[in-house]
């Protein structure tokens, strides 16, 4: 090579979206606002620059004002927002920025950034961690001004004239929705996991992504040459020539594999002895329904509905929800669409929310617990779902059920929603299948009670593994314990499947476990009626199912249940099905969970 290159550097993260890309990095500042540029302002333009800053602050104020006006009950929140409004005009922030524009002849963004970084460094030197956090109010406020000031941040990204790999701390739905995805070869983020918004977007647009890298934004510089391997979760900075050649070849191999597998994605997933497994798609955005169909999904096994509730000043209205549900239902035609009700703490999702901070939100007021506490909000969603049900094949699913009474209560509210629709004379369908997510150990052990109330169970393995094995999914130090094949998990799955069969209801699985080829023989043998995965995994899951004989999976599962460790279960899978799996999956995907 003609120029001396920096040393090759390898970062390991989470493989959020498969594929390989090689290209130049484009760094996005951590606030989600594009890297702040510095430029000088001519004397005759200075007045205009000052005016530009002032009107950005004015817009920020208006934004806060409308939030305050729209939240009469939340006095606490209104109070802190009033404080933020006062901060917008604070002389150390507002006044100082104006002074810098005027005295240093720089653009408003740069002046603001200078002021804020100075303030941040003052707070950083404080010893008390609590005191340090006070800077967050200032950061919130300056972000708000910056957003209003730049406004064109996305134009900056859209203005990229070559294809790049986007490097960011994290990308919010707002960020990703404004990016021109045509120009993005790959995504790299410091934060997030497989289920992060970036991951979902990347998968639905088939863009390779590695997330959860922690220090990508501090290690990678714009214009650096990087390789993103979304299959293994590896990022290579300044690759040497050998590595480049190796990855060019891998990239071609992967694309060939993908082409083959996509061609046959519409073939049914029937085992060699004639059992037809339904392979459904998990989606989050209504647009993903297209991918679900293209990849041969037999329906939607999990439609996550949180997205419409996030990062906005107020909750979506019934009509807005109805329209997006209806879109999805209509595209799928007669195929089932399983809509899961809100699975977050809604109040915390709102922009500028300053609700009670839960020490342990995963064990806190979320999902069905939140909805049962806020029946009015819940009812809006239920009405929208029942209305959409009139246009196709809808199933309703309640998340995070941990006690029997929660199902009864949820169904009572559902009845009330139906009654109110009847009264309003709106078309809807009440006679739909109702199910629950099995993702809390208490629901597993009381599955026989729960079964009386519902038409189906859907096992959410991501949460179930976390709750059953007492592992914080985000905690790297205990991540090694997070094993889908843990004997405890297998026994729980078996129990739920047995109860479902016994009680005559269906049992499905949604969650990463169902998307992993080497889990398929076990899931078949346990008697799952349906698997639901991200759309992109459907072809490979179907392919693996087509190569297995159902009858043989029963003794195999019996054997698997006798194993004492996840490792031994894995070995058993490899010894029994290794060849089939190697023939039908991309080589990189057959490995023990990390």
């Amino acid at each position, binding site marked *: 090579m003609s120029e001396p290159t920096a040393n090759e550097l390898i970062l390991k993260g989470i493989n959020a979206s498969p594929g390989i890309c090689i290209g130049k990095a484009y760094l996005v500042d951590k606030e989600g606002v594009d890297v702040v540029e510095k430029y000088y302002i001519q004397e005759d333009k200075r007045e205009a620059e000052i005016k530009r800053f002032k009107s950005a602050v004015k817009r920020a104020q208006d934004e806060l004002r409308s939030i305050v006006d729209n939240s009469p009950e939340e006095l606490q929140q209104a109070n802190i927002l*009033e*404080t933020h409004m*006062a901060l917008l005009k*604070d002389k*150390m922030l507002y006044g100082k920025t104006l002074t810098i524009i005027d005295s240093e002849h720089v653009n408003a963004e740069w002046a603001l950034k200078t002021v804020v970084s100075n*303030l941040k460094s003052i*707070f950083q030197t404080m010893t008390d961690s609590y005191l340090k956090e006070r800077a967050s109010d200032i950061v919130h406020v300056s972000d708000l001004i910056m957003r209003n000031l730049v406004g064109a941040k996305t134009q900056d990204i859209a203005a990229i004239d070559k294809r790049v790999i986007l490097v960011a701390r994290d990308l919010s739905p707002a960020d990703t929705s404004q990016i021109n995805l045509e120009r993005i070869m790959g995504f790299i983020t410091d934060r997030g996991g497989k289920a992060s918004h970036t991951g979902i977007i990347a998968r639905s647009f088939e863009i390779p992504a590695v997330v959860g890298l922690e220090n990508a934004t501090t290690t990678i510089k714009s214009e650096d040459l990087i390789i993103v391997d979304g299959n293994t979760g590896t990022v290579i900075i300044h690759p040497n020539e050998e590595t480049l050649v190796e990855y060019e070849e891998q990239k071609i191999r992967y694309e060939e594999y993908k082409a083959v597998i996509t061609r046959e994605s519409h073939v049914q997933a029937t085992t060699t002895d004639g059992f037809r497994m339904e392979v459904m798609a998990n989606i989050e955005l209504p647009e993903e329904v297209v991918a679900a169909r293209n990849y041969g999904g037999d329906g939607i096994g999990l439609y996550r509905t949180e997205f419409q509730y996030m990062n906005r000043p107020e909750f979506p209205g019934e009509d807005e929800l109805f329209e997006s549900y209806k879109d999805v239902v209509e595209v799928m035609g007669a195929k089932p669409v399983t809509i899961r009700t809100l699975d977050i703490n809604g109040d915390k999702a709102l922009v500028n929310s300053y609700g009670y901070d839960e020490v342990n939100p995963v064990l806190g007021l979320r999902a069905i617990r939140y909805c049962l506490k806020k029946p009015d909000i819940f009812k809006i969603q239920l009405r929208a779902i029942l209305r959409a049900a009139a246009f196709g094949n809808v199933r309703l699913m309640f998340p995070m059920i941990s006690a029997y009474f929660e199902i009864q209560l949820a169904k009572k509210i559902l009845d009330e929603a139906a009654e109110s629709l009847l009264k309003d004379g709106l078309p809807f369908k009440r006679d739909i299948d109702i199910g629950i997510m099995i993702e809390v150990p208490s629901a597993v052990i009381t599955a026989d009670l729960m079964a009386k109330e519902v038409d189906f169970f859907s096992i959410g393995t991501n949460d179930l593994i976390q709750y059953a094995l007492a592992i914080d999914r985000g905690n790297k130090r205990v991540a090694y314990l997070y094993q889908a094949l843990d004997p405890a998990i297998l026994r729980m799955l078996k129990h739920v499947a047995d109860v479902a069969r016994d009680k005559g209801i269906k049992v499905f699985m949604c969650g990463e476990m169902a998307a992993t080829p080497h889990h398929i023989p076990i899931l078949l043998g346990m008697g799952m009626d349906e698997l639901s995965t991200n759309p992109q995994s459907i072809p490979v899951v179907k392919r693996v199912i087509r190569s297995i004989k159902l009858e043989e999976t029963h003794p195999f599962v019996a054997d698997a249940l006798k194993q004492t460790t996840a490792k031994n279960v894995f070995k058993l899978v490899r010894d029994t099905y290794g060849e089939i799996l190697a023939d039908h999956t991309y080589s990189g995907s057959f490995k023990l969970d990390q």
Partner: protein
Amino acid sequence: MINITSSEKENIVVSGKSVFRDVIIKNELGLHARSAAQIAKLVQNSKAAVWIKRGDEKADASSIVDILTLACEKGSTITIIIEDPADIDILKAIAEMVESEFGE
């Protein structure tokens, strides 16, 4: 000119035109954004500058940000300083707010 009751006298120091008063931060959260905002709001109508001093550092009491940089946690002593005796009511009001723990 300055209207000080005898009970307040022991707390208040007059030096030239300036008036000083020490108070101890008692609320759990210390001087955070919201409490600082309450102070800054009071100071908006002052005739002359109002300062909050902690140790050697002095902050402009009309600026939330400046007050925050003093990092006053619970138990710290601050000095409220007014430069014009006409602002004595503001000084008293701030002291009262601190004493009443900002209504938290």
